[in-house]
């Protein structure tokens, strides 16, 4: 377990809540680790399981999907489908032996800049001791 190991994380943030929450963290000048590269999607409901598998296949050490709280989805119910779909994805990844910490889903609203920061910090902290993700990564 390399102390210098910095996990590379891809985060899918929904435009209206989580990305806005992330923006708020920025506006408030909160600080969090730089391991996460965000990809903005319109809605957490538009995150296909393929994105998550592909990120892991390309060497991501962790994947985060973050959307609006139930009932607050800008597109009314996209996050409800995400919740169902990604529960199956999470269970499947764990079933084949991927460490459960490597895929995470969170609800972050546009007002929760602090929560976003804590989610990132927590995620990085959990992933550091696990080292690089090798179980699904494509050989370089």
């Amino acid at each position, binding site marked *: 377990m390399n102390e210098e190991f910095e996990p590379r994380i891809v985060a899918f943030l929904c435009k209206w809540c989580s990305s806005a929450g992330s923006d708020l963290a920025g506006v408030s000048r909160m600080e969090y680790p730089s391991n996460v590269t965000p990809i903005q999607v319109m809605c957490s409901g538009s995150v296909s*399981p*393929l994105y998550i*598998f*592909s990120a892991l*296949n390309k060497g991501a050490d962790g994947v985060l999907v973050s959307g609006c709280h*139930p009932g607050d989805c800008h597109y009314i*119910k996209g996050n*409800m*489908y995400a*919740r*169902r*779909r990604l*529960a*199956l*994805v*999470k*269970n*499947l*990844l*764990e*079933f*084949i*032996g*991927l*460490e*459960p910490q490597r895929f*995470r*889903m*969170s*609800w972050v609203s546009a007002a929760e800049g602090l929560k976003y920061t804590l*989610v990132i910090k*927590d995620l990085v902290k959990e992933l550091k001791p696990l080292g690089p993700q090798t*179980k*699904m*990564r*494509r*050989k370089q």
Partner: protein
Amino acid sequence: MANIEALRQEARKLLEEGKVRTLIGYERGPSPWVSSPVFLKSADKVETLIWDPTCVQNLVRFLVDDKRRQAKEREPDKRPVALVVKGCDSRAVNVLLQEKFIDRSQVLVLGISCEKTGMADAKKLAKALKSKKFLAVEFGEGDTFLVTTAEGKVSLPADQVLAERCRECKANVPVISDVLIGDKTKRTPAKPFASVEPMESLSAEERANFWKEQFDRCIRCYACRSVCPMCYCEECVVDSINYAVTAETSAEEKAQKIRWIERSSEKSENIVYHLVRAVHLAGRCIDCAECERVCPMDIPVRFLNKKLEKDALALFGYEPGLEAGLPPLVSSFKDDDPQDFIR
């Protein structure tokens, strides 16, 4: 024991009356422990139809191929196809109806009940007979199989030689049929998801090691995909080079093809293929286990689908293929769907 004569009689009637285009059933294959699909167009061949514990194929897959063939006909024969289905297979018919892939009027379902037993697993049979050669396997009385060897007949308890998936079967009686042959009594499986539970109790490392061995072996022959009735997509999302390029395919469409994974059968690429397939079959796979049967590398492909079937029931109360009017698993949700995994 479901009466094969009753089936043959029905088949004869349908074919004589010209009610169906083709009748797809089982016939004896090249050896006593293998059956083959048979496509009957006339009543004089109905005697070839068989029904015994070797009738393991899911014939519903042929509806997929049939649809493609019909689409190419200039003047397609509008009569339905008659299909012999077991309980598990009948659920596949429901899923195809649910997804509007086929119209109810296009298939005549000849349901046949497995009654108290099911399909025999060839390896288990060999073990039970201590590798003695067997000449025939038939359904016995109650929950037994009757095996004919050179020395005579042996009765084996179903428990000993039943295929793994039949031990977890929830629908030994077809849930949809136009004609139903055999007893309607349902057999409740002792432990519906017994096969996945040992896996779930292993540690992440142990699981990873198990699956590493499996995915390493996969040669991406796509036999599992080819035999699955639910894998009827024109183009497989993870294997987009498969797509038939016609004169009408625009440059944009060709440019839109995504290479999610490489064609090489590297473990990492195999994993994505299998995971995507499992997720796409969530709420649709009815555990006919054909994928596992046809795998040349003996990979327990069925486990992935069974795990998601277990979760679909435990988390969302969903059971695929029990009725055609059910909304698909992933295009519906409940307000109280579990979300403890979301922090």
